[in-house]
């Protein structure tokens, strides 16, 4: 029996995913576990494997198609099987590009693996009348159903309600990035609201990262369908290589620009004497290798110190909105993680309530998940303060870029030897640079500096802080 392969829902807020690469052609033999296609949300990349042995009978979407979650993407089965009932309402492969398919017209009967899809997870159920009378409705296709997920796009025209459009304008964000949840793929007010709050949590951290060729492996187009576009005849073909921007790169580009163009950010630099934390780190390393404390590093300790310092400086653990500020009661720490696809910022929720070991474990797991692309987007939002560390790459100080609506971000530099005067003369000590970028609209210079000062004190007396 033919098995439909649906676009999984990766996280509660994800309504659609973009297919980045097909690994199998129609007609190829596949085994259970073979990667069929790769896809990404705006935050993470994933591979979908075949649920069964057989032949890839049909592909309903092409690379770069934005596919509503829970929609059938392709079918694996035996030669000659009738799969017409599994089509998501469009002709296989030969369908014109750019026609969004309906999420609901052929809601999958089974989830991958053959288990029935829970009703509550399926997008709104198609009206019984529509299902029973396909003929009159067929002409309209996707418009006949609601909540198709991605913004409906009729040849470049995005459907959006006037109210949502005006909210997007006021918030100065591009509504095209919103995930449509309205009828017939219309972007409605709540989509813009969730886009605003997503932005707040997933904004990339820094512009100081050294530029490198944008070749994120997971999103690099391969194969015939998305081979590099031949350049114009007048330009020597060898002069450059043209790479299509990944979804994520586009998001980063927009977010960076928006942060710098819409906030009043500036950076304060300071440094602290790392003798205490290095000594502490040394002692922890002496623990057994399988003891989690052995892997606690300096970054984790800085995260810990930030989580304990921030709540006495609440305007820095805050979101600045149009006409109000949200002062958060707990510290949701965003941690900048460098991945092949670009920067990601997973969140350690309520870090102020967690022990140093818990923070360290969680930070490590989140970073690993980011690098393998397996992190649920649910962990990529709702940060209240972000820490980014370029110390490993030899950077001493930099100017991190704010992640609005957060009001501050801390950059951590590399360890350098400095000297200081003591009663005994001059003495070398290890110093770590701290760069605090904050939004001057929300916070003045002095309170920001006071935070930095207290953080420095806490880090220099880390063992005392641990005792608190």
């Amino acid at each position, binding site marked *: 029996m033919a098995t439909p392969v649906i676009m999984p829902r990766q996280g509660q807020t994800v309504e659609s995913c973009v297919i980045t690469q097909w690994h199998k052609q129609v007609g190829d033999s596949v085994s259970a576990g073979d990667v069929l296609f790769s896809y990404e949300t705006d935050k993470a990349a994933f591979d979908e494997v075949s649920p069964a042995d057989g032949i890839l009978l049909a592909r309903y979407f092409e690379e770069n198609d934005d596919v509503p979650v829970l929609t059938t993407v392709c079918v694996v089965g035996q030669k000659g099987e009738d799969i017409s009932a599994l089509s998501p309402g469009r002709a296989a492969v030969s369908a014109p590009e750019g026609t969004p398919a309906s999420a609901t017209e052929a809601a999958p009967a089974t989830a991958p693996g053959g288990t029935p899809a829970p*009703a*509550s997870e399926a*997008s*709104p*159920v*198609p*009206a*019984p*009348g*529509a299902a029973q*009378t396909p003929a*009159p*409705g067929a002409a*309209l296709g996707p*418009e*006949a*159903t*609601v*909540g198709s997920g991605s913004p409906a796009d009729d040849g470049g025209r995005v459907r959006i*309600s*006037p*109210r*949502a459009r*005006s909210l997007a304008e006021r918030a100065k964000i591009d509504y095209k990035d919103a995930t449509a*949840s*309205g*009828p*017939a793929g*219309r972007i*409605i*007010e*709540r989509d813009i609201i969730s886009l605003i709050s997503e932005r707040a949590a997933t904004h990339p951290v820094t512009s100081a990262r050294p530029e490198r060729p944008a070749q994120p492996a997971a999103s690099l187009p391969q194969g015939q369908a998305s081979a590099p576009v031949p350049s114009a005849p007048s330009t020597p073909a060898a002069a450059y290589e043209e790479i299509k921007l990944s979804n994520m790169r586009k998001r980063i580009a927009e977010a960076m620009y928006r942060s710098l163009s819409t906030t009043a950010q500036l950076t304060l630099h300071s440094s602290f004497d790392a003798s205490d934390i290095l000594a502490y780190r040394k002692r922890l390393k002496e623990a057994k290798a399988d003891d989690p404390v052995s892997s606690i590093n300096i970054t984790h300790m800085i995260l810990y110190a930030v989580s304990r310092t921030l709540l006495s400086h609440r305007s820095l653990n805050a979101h600045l909105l149009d006409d109000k500020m949200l002062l958060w009661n707990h510290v949701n720490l965003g941690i900048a993680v460098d991945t092949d696809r670009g920067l990601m910022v997973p969140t350690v929720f309520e870090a102020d309530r967690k022990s140093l070991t818990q923070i360290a474990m969680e930070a490590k797991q989140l970073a690993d998940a980011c690098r393998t692309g397996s992190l649920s987007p649910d962990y990529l939002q709702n940060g209240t303060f972000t820490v980014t560390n370029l110390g490993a790459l030899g950077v001493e100080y930099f100017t991190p870029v704010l992640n609005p609506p957060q009001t501050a971000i801390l950059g951590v530099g590399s360890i350098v030897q400095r000297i200081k005067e003591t009663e005994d003369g001059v003495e070398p000590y290890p110093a770590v640079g701290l760069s605090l970028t904050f939004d001057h609209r929300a916070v003045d210079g002095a309170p920001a500096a006071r935070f930095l000062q207290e953080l420095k004190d806490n880090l220099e007396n880390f063992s005392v802080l641990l005792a608190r």
Partner: protein
Amino acid sequence: MPKTQLVNPEELRKPGFVKLNDIPVNQYSKSIDEEKANFSKDDFLRIFRDMLIIREFETMLYTVKTTGEFKGIAYNYPGPAHLSTGQEAAAVGQAYLLDKDDFIFGSHRSHGEILAKGLSAIHKMSEQELMEIMSSYFDGNILSVVKPQWDEKAGIKQLAIDFLVYGTLAEIFAKETGFNKGLGGSMHAFFPPFGIYPNNAIVGGSAGIAMGAALYKKVNKKKGIVVSNVGDGSLGCGPVWEAMNMAAMDQFKYLWEDDYKGGLPIIFNFMNNCYGMGGQTIGETMGFGVLARVGAGINPEQMHAERVDGYNPLAVIDAMRRKKQLLEENKGPVLLDTLTYRYAGHSPSDASTYRTKDEIDAWMAQDSIESYKRSLIDAGVAKEEEFADIRDAVESLVFRAFKTAVDEKLSPRMDPKQNPDIIGNLMFSNLKIEKMDERECEVLIPKDQNPRVQQIAKKARSAYEDGKPVPKARVYQLRDGLFEAIIDKFYTDPTLVAYGEDNRDWGGAFAVYRGLTESLPYHRFFNAPISEAAIVASAVGYALSGGRVIAELMYCDFLGRAGDEVFNQLAKWQAMSAGILKMPVVLRVSVGSKYGAQHSQDWSSLCAHIPGLKVVFPATPYDAKGLMNSALAGTDPVVFFESQRIYDIGEMFHEGGVPEGYYEIPIGEPDIKRKGNDITILTIGATLYRAIEAADILQTKYGLSAEVIDARTLVPFNYEPVIESVKKTGRILLTSDACERGSRLMDMAQTISELAFDYLDAPPVVVGARNWITPAFELEQFFFPQPEWIIDAIHEKILPLKGHVVRTNFTPNEQIRRNNLGV
């Protein structure tokens, strides 16, 4: 169905015969010499003059229509000209005895009657009275045009005649200096101060209205009689029969109180010119043979019907004199078959293909004006030269009026460019008049002794007491709210009458009027025949004569039976009179429930579509009483919709319940019944309660707070509170029991789209009843909007609701499919 009268089988099953009396046909045979006892020489000559004025007036219009000029002055008149050339003797004869207190109502062919009635009234009025009328009518605007052309030596009466001819002609030419500022025109011109009431472009339209005016005269003991001048063709119209029947109801004879006894003071005068447009009534389109025969079908008195020779003015006057006498003896109504003939076609475009030239020539050979003149000369009343002098004066009179009326400076048209609201402002009078007359109200008992009043006093005026619902038997219901407002007005306004089918004794089919019978004499509160057209038309006539009236249509579905009366008469006369007439009519219309396709329709949208009607549809006892009070205090026609589904509902929204005292709710103001933030639901009528149920579901299942607004009124309508709500919520769904296609909701949705476009998160969505017949009660849930439909429509069209599973199909495909099918 009064218990005082026995429907006796012994009596009714007896064999026997109905004997008819002879119907007189052209029995007038007096000579001029015999008539000299009744008419002076002046009278004889005045009759001639009046006929000649009509002839000259109509000839002038015919010339203008066909040649574009009159006596060398070019004028283009594009409007209608249904001329009565040939019918002058009939017009002058019916008017000769009438004064300003006698009302005439006419047809599309009534120029002659207007002039004849005006001339007769002028003759009977004092100069002072005439000056008062002319100088106060439209602040003397018409007089100021006529006066400079007037030769003072000719006297005030001549001035009044100039005023009459000019005011009529200016009205026909659509001039602002016409009797109705040009808003009535040729087929509707009238002048109430001379007792000339609306002429009507709808064939037979005047019969019911005139009957209502007669009802007004009877009930309010006003002087004068009423004449309905309609044509022979109008006997093909049901409403004319309804009007005659209602004027002859037995209850006038047997049930009405002492000095109110007797039929209505009305003459149904059929100007029988033998044609209904081109259809020959005798021999082709009708079967009566002699029109006067019809009276025998109406009542035992045969309506005192007779045929009178309308080519002899003295024969008509003779008949009118005898008939007027009958009316004064409370022996009405009367039917008169006034035989006449028109020379001109139905209108100037009529080539008279349906009759021969010989036929026209034969009538012209007996021309009423010529033969009347000849008979006066033969009888030695006057000499040829005297008639020539009259002719000169008449020609000069009509030419004077023509010259003035076509002059753009002296006789301008309304200028909507200068004043864009000039017509709009006339659509409603918007006055507040507590009582239409100052006299005592005739009632049978003091109000506080009324059994229903006493019963209501014991009721709980809120739907809830200490948080618990009050039982139906003890709760103050919507019908009680209506009753309180209505009985209050019966004790305030002496002119107020109420009638409809099964109103008295029964108390109205839905018990709104229960208890009213105990308080009111018959002449203020009675059962009408099953004649929706006559019920509404008579209300129109009653109101424009100066009274206040509540008419009732038992089921909204019966509105079709009164279509012309509601849409063309009730709605139009205030504006067509340029504000001269008021229309304080409350037309109660009950929207049915449970009784299937012809007893369950909400046609409020039909009424809302017609300009000139205020349309309300309250859904709570508080609103019902407040809106009824407003409707009964105003001077505009209010179509008052009520839903049979909720007559027994208690007051759930207004804090403190329904006040005992008098209060008004302004017509046109929607009311927020429940506050909310996420979506607005606008309802009309009883659907309010289903919307509230839907709001509860939205709150408990989906965490959405709905703001529910009750429109309360369809026309006029203040959009501002709705727009404010939509600005807040960004979403709106509109729902009512009216079939969705072309409904008032669609209209409102469109307007909201325009007014709040930038605030909308989804298009306004309308959930109406299906475009089907209303099925049986057991299937109504598939026809009328249900709470689940509202949720489904929100989910499909406005805001997908997480986890919601739809049961009904509100997809765009389904919308297109249904429209393709026309359902």
